[in-house]
């Protein structure tokens, strides 16, 4: 039997640190995951958990001279970290495309929308300007811009926020990338527009046969479209599993906290939405042992050594970093999600 093909993308023990005046900030500290063909991976975590830095590192978009990278990012079996810069440019936008949080500022204000999309096409394909423009207009139609022939010549400031994010998606998909990385694509948008953009990404990933990595701080955003979800906390993945596992059988108390902070209609109404007590830890001097320990209502002495990310109480492909034994965990979990033991 032939060995199984390598996953589309495999990140192995990625570490990213920044040398600053106050010390070394370990923004990403040993993250590993894989992404299969056509899969949608959600990466969830609060600000500063290292989710964006992880994905920016995949495309080598961090050109801070104080950044230090370790580990491997294997794209189709090749380590992206070792690619020469000109080969890396072919990957960027050609094979792995990325869209960003704020569509208001992500487009260049001085060029027409179609020209910016055409620029992405012309960078990777040997076609004429007219053909690139035609394709840009087609893409704008595909992402749901009405009257695309007319709007193509608009400048970004003539587009609404949702339209700009659509234009960004059109630009990202222009070269049929294998992977689309969306870094908080809906955070800066109105709630109704958020849903539209997520639907659009869900539809287009099939049309373009792209895998998607969706970075968000909101579990509600990935609930609809993700196949698997990774939860990041303080530069580490603390839980990783299929969507159903993660929503219905969450293993890590931090995930419980995230779940508890989503307003839900299928639960009795609470007086107030509960939040996770405390602040995210310093990445310069993270707490010893489990990094969530200082904020965890269930911490006990064993948490002073950090658990590895491995299969514990969850399903066969459900990994987490928590010492609590699965049986006692189930007993406290629901109350934690409802916020009761956070108050206790």
């Amino acid at each position, binding site marked *: 039997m032939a060995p199984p093909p390598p996953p589309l993308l495999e990140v192995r023990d990625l570490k990213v640190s920044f040398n600053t005046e106050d010390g070394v900030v370990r923004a990403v500290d040993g993250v590993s995951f894989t992404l299969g063909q056509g899969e949608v991976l959600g990466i969830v975590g609060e600000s500063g958990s290292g989710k964006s830095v992880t994905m920016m590192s995949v495309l080598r978009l961090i050109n801070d001279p104080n950044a230090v990278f370790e580990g491997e990012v294997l794209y189709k079996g090749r380590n992206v970290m070792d690619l020469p810069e000109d080969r890396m440019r072919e990957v960027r936008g050609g094979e792995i495309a990325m869209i960003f949080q704020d569509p208001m500022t992500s487009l260049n204000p001085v060029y027409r929308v179609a020209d910016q999309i055409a620029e992405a096409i012309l960078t990777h394909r040997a076609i004429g300007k007219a053909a690139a423009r035609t394709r840009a207009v087609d893409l704008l139609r595909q992402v749901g811009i009405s009257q695309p022939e007319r709007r193509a010549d608009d400048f970004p400031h003539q587009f609404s926020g949702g339209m700009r994010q659509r234009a960004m998606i059109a*630009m990202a998909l222009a070269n049929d990338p294998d992977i689309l990385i969306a870094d908080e694509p809906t955070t800066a948008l109105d709630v109704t527009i958020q849903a539209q953009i997520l639907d659009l990404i869900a539809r287009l990933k099939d049309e373009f046969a792209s895998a998607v990595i969706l970075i968000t701080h909101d579990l509600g955003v990935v609930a609809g479209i993700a196949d698997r979800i990774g939860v990041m906390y303080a530069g580490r993945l603390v839980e990783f599993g299929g969507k159903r596992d993660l929503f219905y059988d969450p293993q890590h108390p931090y995930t419980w906290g995230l779940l508890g902070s989503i307003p839900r209609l299928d639960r009795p109404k609470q007086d107030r939405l509960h939040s996770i007590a405390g602040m995210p830890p310093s990445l310069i001097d993270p707490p010893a042992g489990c990094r969530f320990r200082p904020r965890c209502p269930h911490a006990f002495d064993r948490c002073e050594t950090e658990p590895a990310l491995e299969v514990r109480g969850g399903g066969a492909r459900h990994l987490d970093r928590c010492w609590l034994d699965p049986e006692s965990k189930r007993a406290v979990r629901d109350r934690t999600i409802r916020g009761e033991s956070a108050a206790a």
Partner: protein
Amino acid sequence: MALFIVRRLIGLVVVLFAITVLTFLIFFATPGVDPTRSLAGRNPTPETVAAVRHQFGLDRSKPEQYVLMMKRLFISRDLVSYGNQALKVVPAITAATPVTFSLVIGAAVIWILLSILTGVLAVVLKGSIWDPLLMIVALIGISMPVFWLGEVANLITQDRLHDTFLFSWVPPLGYTPLTENPWQWFLHLIIPWLTLAALYVGFYARVLRANLLDVANEDFVRTARAKGLSERRILTRHMLRTSMITFVSLFGLDFAVLVGGGALLTEVVFGLPGVGLLTYRSLQSLDLPVIMATVIYGAFFITIANAVVDILYARLDPRIRPT
């Protein structure tokens, strides 16, 4: 567009009116400037004084004098200098204008090219020793007063090293019209150009560098990089293009000020008979008609340049373009 031009023209008239009235009032408020003295010659009889005052309208009320002066300046165009009655003011300005334009345009070309080169180079070489080095050189350029730099240039090229192979080509101070001898025109102007440009090269290079570094952190530059563009294309098409918005508006105003007579020191130091030199001489002898004319000339170009900058600004930045 038509509305824009009309608005600008009205603005121009208002500015010119205000500035001429102001110049007029300052002149007559200055003690000891009575033009009769220079007009009537040495030890004049009271009759001569009265006749001269009448001839030049100085015996009329101030508003009347103002109107008379404007009429002679704009309509009959026969306003003469108080100091030298053979000097007609309007032809004098017309003759001086090409000299000033030659000086300022040449210097502007040099300072635009060199400052973009320096600014971009500093950004590209950021992190190496060259970036701070270039910026120190730029700061030195800014810090050297143009009259001092000009005098030093003259000392070296006209005197100390003039007889060596280095500067034996430098012609004596002065000006040769472009239409008369382009090569001599160039030789006469090259050192004034470099002198005048030195300050602006330094200033513009530093502004551009700061601007480029600002733009480098913009999200759209990250987008450009994520598209797979080369660093060169990101720098020229995305960073430099956006930085030009500031650069061009700054340039328009500096250029206008220089054309409007702000190159006075350079013209004086190098003996270039431009509008600046004319202003300088008229100020020395408190020669109101010539001062008035040069002030109007300057205000005119600055207002025009302002309008041009506004148009260019809208061309460069679609966000402020009227739709």
